[in-house]
């Protein structure tokens, strides 16, 4: 059978099948439209009402004068804003990025108290100064953490932290050591290891090998930095693909299609830093749809934003606070995007700063009145807990030396307060 005839048969086969949606579909859509009017409608309704009121009642002369002055002020303000905008033009991104798909978020069972510390004598993972990769499985209410202790192992058993009961459990599943990202569509955590990409279901402990990377993801060396520090992986809810960024050589960026097991290079454009710095922290800002890169050298710090869809890097002109890391660039820092407040937070021992990607500004989050800074806590693994809408940090003791024994605290940026979830 020749190719054109086969193609014609394929096209003909695709023509078969239903072409009419059930009546319930349109009914449900129209009900949604009815129940969720667009905001512009509400604004227009108010504007129409105001206009009608001014037509019904003749305006008093003083009120008219006030109205003219108010309009004049608004005009001057707009002119000023346009002028300032021309002096300081905003960063122009090459393409708009659509909103991500929403995922399901777990709810704590009645009777559980997420603020109640978990039992101290429970088994817990070991996380050394390199820090361990950790992500939140939003649908299950679990934080998935790969332990690090001594020489990095090529395969590990993940640890799962229940954010409702503050208890750890170690999974029986064996997964490669590597970088993590959670896919809310398939409700699985993807682990990018040295020679395999594996999906892990935290509810059932099941793993599925999806494919293998065309390069070594981590390169395990006894003295090297951990894999979480070296690679950053982000799930893109728009396409169902992942972005994989080489933190040690930032110009290397791939998109990975887990269904086809294909890797595509994304050419880096714009202000691409040529080398890594002493401290490289990456987090994906789900609100701005961009990777935020906090870069700290020996004296100064800088902020970059990356649009991974186009590979475009932009160095942000705003001042970037150089956080003081008590032990240089060893371990006592972390980064996470907080979806509840739409900010990317960077932590060091006792200090937290927040980045607003829309305004391109940093802000220091000083402790609330009466709240002491958490100077004796060294965060080694961080993740945003979408169930309780706060940052959860696994960490060790501080006070000038690294004191092993992982405790867990939660930080609520709205109240700027820390909550102990598990004592060391």
């Amino acid at each position: 059978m020749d190719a054109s005839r086969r193609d014609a048969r394929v096209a003909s086969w695709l023509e078969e099948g239903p072409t009419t949606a059930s009546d319930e579909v349109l009914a449900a859509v129209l009900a949604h439209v009815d129940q969720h009017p667009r905001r512009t409608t509400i604004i227009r309704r108010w504007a129409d009402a105001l206009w009608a009121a001014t037509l019904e009642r003749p305006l008093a002369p003083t009120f008219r004068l006030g109205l003219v002055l108010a309009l004049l002020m608004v005009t001057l303000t707009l002119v000023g804003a346009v002028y300032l905008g021309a002096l300081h033009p905003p960063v122009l991104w090459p393409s708009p990025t659509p909103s991500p798909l929403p995922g399901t978020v777990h709810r704590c069972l009645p009777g559980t108290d997420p603020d109640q510390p978990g039992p101290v004598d429970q088994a817990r993972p070991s996380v050394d100064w390199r820090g361990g990769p950790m992500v939140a499985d939003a649908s299950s209410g679990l934080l998935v953490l790969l332990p690090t202790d001594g020489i990095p192992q090529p395969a590990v058993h993940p640890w799962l932290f229940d954010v409702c009961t503050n208890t750890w459990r170690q999974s029986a599943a064996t997964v490669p050591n590597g970088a993590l990202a959670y896919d809310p569509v398939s409700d699985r955590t993807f682990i990018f290891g040295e020679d395999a990409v594996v999906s892990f279901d935290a509810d059932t402990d099941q793993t599925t090998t999806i494919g293998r990377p065309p390069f070594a993801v981590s390169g395990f060396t006894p003295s090297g930095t951990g894999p979480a520090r070296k690679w950053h992986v982000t799930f893109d809810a728009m396409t169902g693909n992942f972005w994989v960024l080489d933190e040690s050589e930032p110009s290397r960026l791939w998109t990975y299609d887990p269904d086809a097991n294909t890797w595509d290079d994304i050419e880096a454009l714009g202000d691409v830093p040529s080398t890594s710095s002493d401290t490289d922290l990456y987090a994906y800002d789900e609100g701005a749809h961009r990777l935020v890169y906090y870069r700290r050298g020996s004296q100064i710090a800088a902020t970059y934003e990356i649009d991974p869809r186009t590979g475009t890097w932009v160095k942000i002109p705003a001042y970037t606070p150089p956080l003081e890391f008590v032990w240089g660039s060893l371990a006592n820092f972390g980064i996470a995007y907080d979806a509840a407040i739409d900010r990317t937070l960077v932590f060091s021992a006792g200090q937290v700063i927040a980045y607003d990607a829309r305004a391109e500004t940093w802000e220091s989050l000083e402790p609330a009145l009466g709240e002491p800074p958490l100077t004796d806590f060294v965060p080694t693994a961080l993740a945003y807990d979408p169930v309780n809408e706060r940052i959860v940090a696994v960490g060790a003791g501080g006070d000038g030396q690294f004191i092993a024994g992982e405790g867990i605290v939660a930080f609520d940026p709205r109240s700027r307060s820390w909550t102990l979830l598990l004592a060391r």
Partner: protein
Amino acid sequence: MERELVVRAQGGDADAFSTLARRAVDRLYAVAFRILRDPDRADDATQQALISAWDHIGALRDPDCFEAWTYRMVVRAALKEARREWRQHRPAHSAELRIDDNGDVLEAVVERDELDHAFRTLSPEHRAVVVLHYYADLPLAQIAEIVGIPVGTVGSRLFNGVRRLRAALDREALVVAERSMM
């Protein structure tokens, strides 16, 4: 006419959007069904796409692109539905034909069965590209825009997807020929 309706819907006119939704619902459903091969899940994807269209219609810059934009919505919703199923129950590649040895096998039935089986082994992204090209008759550049991937990737997905479907037809032709000789 449609442009005017889109502009009115962007301004919050629910009636205008209802008209647009009535016109689009079957077109979107047909695409969703062909990606998902399941009428109920195609209904779900269509509903989700139209609701998303209403919620985000203000973000549509060019009202003339409404049709392509709604394709994007339904493909996205269908991919979400498909991925959930596909990653957990990935169909195995199989060269076996499922034919009843006791009955006369009509060529068309075998062909449909083989194509259906081969199509289900494609990833959701490959299915979407094949459907948008062969069913919705869209050019590769527009498919790239809808699915959010480079044109070259659309081409390779289309090539690989169609190659598998062609192979299924070849297997079907071979088996039918063998059976006719028996």
